[in-house]
């Protein structure tokens, strides 16, 4: 089997799984903000090996590269962006762990792969600036973690969190950690009730004198910049894929609805303005798909001046998903505003996806600011 054929086989299995196990229950789970659904689904995803997709084969995973994992997120998000968003964080945690020492890999990968029965193990990630408030203190042989992450995805149900502390203002000294969320001193706060991705148990997390064992450090202390960069690249790519899945779902619903609704003398898909909207949806989804795939493979391929960027993929895909969803609601008319049609849920979900990992305008601003030193001054 070529890698491509393998990926097709995986997406096919995941699609069947999600259409059966996730799609039918997603709307009700949203209505009830049922975060407890996540571990339930997680336990079932093991049947098809989803949590272990990015984990290397020798640790019980499927060893799928980033683009393959993103494709699966896209597939899952089509049925429920909330579940997909939990996967984004989990896969990003695995991406961070790729750089860890052999002993850590042995300790964590197997569990994150969820290949064995037992408690579902969900990983999550927290990156600066959300972790600016965190600090480490050395006390004899022990190191303690203190501070808060203002809002952490998957917080309530995550077992491990990879987080990065920026210990110096210039951003060079970055320490990476993998923290056991069940460790003494970790307190998960109240769910802020975000409008979308409601099954994802977001919460602020407080760390109070959490004893960090030596096995918790990712890489060397103060030298995890490369790990952070890689983890974040993967995360942005995955978020982009989740947005594409949500946009696909909206565009399918809009097309299906437009194909049967009669108004203004025609089935509305025959109105040019509806055709333009549906066309624009497909175009944006197509460009978005290329953007996340290219960003995650990091393949050069294109012209030499064009560098694949997961950050840009995240911004483009989440923004375009919002546009697609708004048009999809519009095409549904009044029905689009009603919960049971599921498109307004996608609008709420996409809004939160837009803001995960930092809001898009702030990311753009920050990106340019961070790279300004590379631009030669004439």
């Amino acid at each position: 089997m070529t890698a491509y054929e393998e990926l097709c086989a995986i997406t096919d299995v995941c699609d069947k799984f999600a259409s059966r196990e996730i799609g039918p229950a997603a709307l009700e789970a949203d209505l009830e903000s049922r975060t407890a659904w996540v571990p339930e689904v997680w336990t079932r995803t093991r049947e098809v090996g989803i949590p272990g997709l990015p984990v290397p084969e020798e640790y019980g995973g499927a060893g799928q590269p980033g683009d393959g994992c993103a494709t699966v997120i896209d597939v899952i998000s089509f049925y429920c962006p909330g579940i997909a968003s939990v996967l984004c964080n989990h896969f990003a945690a695995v991406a961070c762990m790729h750089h860890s020492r052999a002993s850590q890999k042995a300790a964590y990968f197997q569990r994150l792969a969820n290949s064995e029965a037992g408690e579902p193990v969900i990983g999550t990630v927290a990156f600066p600036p959300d972790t600016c408030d965190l600090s480490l203190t050395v006390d004899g042989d022990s190191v303690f973690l203190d501070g808060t992450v203002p809002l952490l995805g998957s917080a309530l149900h995550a077992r491990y969190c990879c987080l990065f502390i920026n210990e110096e203002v210039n951003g060079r000294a970055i320490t990476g950690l993998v923290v056991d969320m069940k460790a003494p001193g970790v307190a998960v706060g109240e769910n802020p009730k975000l409008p979308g991705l409601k099954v994802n148990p977001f919460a602020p997390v407080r760390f109070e004198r959490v004893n960090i064992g030596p096995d918790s450090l990712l890489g060397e202390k103060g030298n995890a910049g490369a790990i952070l960069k890689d983890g974040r690249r993967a995360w942005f790519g995955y978020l982009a894929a989740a947005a594409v899945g949500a946009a696909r779902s909206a565009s399918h619903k809009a097309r299906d609805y437009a194909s049967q609704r009669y108004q203004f003398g025609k089935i509305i898909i025959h109105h040019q303005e509806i055709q333009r909207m549906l066309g624009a949806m497909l175009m944006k989804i197509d460009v978005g798909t290329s953007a996340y795939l290219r960003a995650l493979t990091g393949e050069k391929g294109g012209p030499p001046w064009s560098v694949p960027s997961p950050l840009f993929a995240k911004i483009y895909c989440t923004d375009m998903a919002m546009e697609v969803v708004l048009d999809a609601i519009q095409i549904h008319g009044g029905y689009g505003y009603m919960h049971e049609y599921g498109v307004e849920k996608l609008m709420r979900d996409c809004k939160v996806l837009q803001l995960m990992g930092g809001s898009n305008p702030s990311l753009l601003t920050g990106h340019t600011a961070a790279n300004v030193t590379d631009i030669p001054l004439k």
Partner: protein
Amino acid sequence: MDYFHVPFGLSAPAPDLIETVPALGALKKANPSYIERAEAAQKTGRLFARDEILPRMLDIDSACARDPRYFDWDLWRKANQKKLTVALIPEKLGGLGYTALGATILCEEMTSACMGITANILFNNFGLLGSLVEFDTGIVMKIIRDMVKAQKNDTPVFWAWAITEPGAGTDVEEAEAMATMRPSTYAEKVPGGYRINGIKCFITNGSLAHFIIATIPMDRTHPLESMATFMIPASSKGFSVGKVERKCGQKASQTAELIFEDVFIPEENLWEPPGRGLRHTREILSTTRGFVGAAGLGIARGSLERCVHYTSMKKIKNHFLIEEDWVLFAIADMLKDIKAVRAACYNFALAVDTYHVMKLFESRPVRTLLAVLPQSFLLSDFVAHLAASRPIISAARTIKQAMVPDALVENFVKEGSAVKVAGTDLAMNVSSRVCDIVGLEGMSYRYGIEKCFRDAKITQIYEGSNQANRIDLFHHEIGSLIHKEAAI
């Protein structure tokens, strides 16, 4: 709300209409009473929004999320005691005497706090607006008397306007579309009146209504030619409320399905005869689209104000989020759009007061009569009988028809459509952009920022989808100029 601390917008200490829209200052010199009433509307609206709506809007939103039929009667009574439920009725008759301008401003202030709650309080005026179309003075006086009496007794009289049905939304608002509509609701002539069957859907206040104004065709194969307007008391046998919808936002406002099973309606409840139903709808739309634009403006404004409050208290590192340059530019950009749309909304309202049906209340004879006659006389049975007498009705109708000809209605639909699209697109754009500024934490339910975003979307859909509004705008401004035979 604990974070409303910047003296801006709703939390500004003293509202100043002239500062908001300076051109109104010039008008004030020419017509002081007109602008003073608008100033009063702004003040009343702002205080009510800040003191009564803001503190409760989230509790109401979440109560309605649990149960779409939840209604905060206590808040409604507070509004009623301030006469906001009869705002459009002249002061002398027991209302607040707000003009279209006053009502627009009131709407902006209240929707900036919560769109759904505003709908509960203000949309009731549909009853009055509807009756002004036919201008049967007997009916108009009866409605005014009923509304004023109910206001005094602190008991609700709700009106709903039902045109949409499951198979037709755009089709009940546009002539060309109605000609091809496939109606499911219909009326039949029976001795002494009409029998109605069918379903209307998405009706605001439908589940609370005492009276429903509905457009229903007499002949399902010729909807445009046979569309009539009925006034249906909710107490009619065979009438029932179906489901109350679970919506994305505007949850405080109930949206209901109305079911008609062999409902008998007496002859006198036929407000517009077959063939005139669409005309009735168009006249209502010719003013309400402007108000929906103003509601969009209010949502945008409320959203921006929450953004200013949140970003000015949100610390990032050693400064506040609002001190970031990119935030400054985004806020300025939204302010610019809000100001432009506000000018358009007020301009539309001024036109309604000057040229449309509201000019009746502003006309010298009516104002003089209202000024000199005592209230007890104006609201007396004698006046009510007089108003219901044939010669008065026909004289009033003649005046009204001359005052509001078909061409004027269509012109106002066009102008209203422009304002509606501008205001509601603004609501969506601003509320979405504000989310992008405040970020994930700012989306926490308690800040009410995500609620603005959820509320905004519906404004682009109802009162004619923004596509239908664009069709109207183009058709009346450009389409009618194009000669089909002039092919190149």
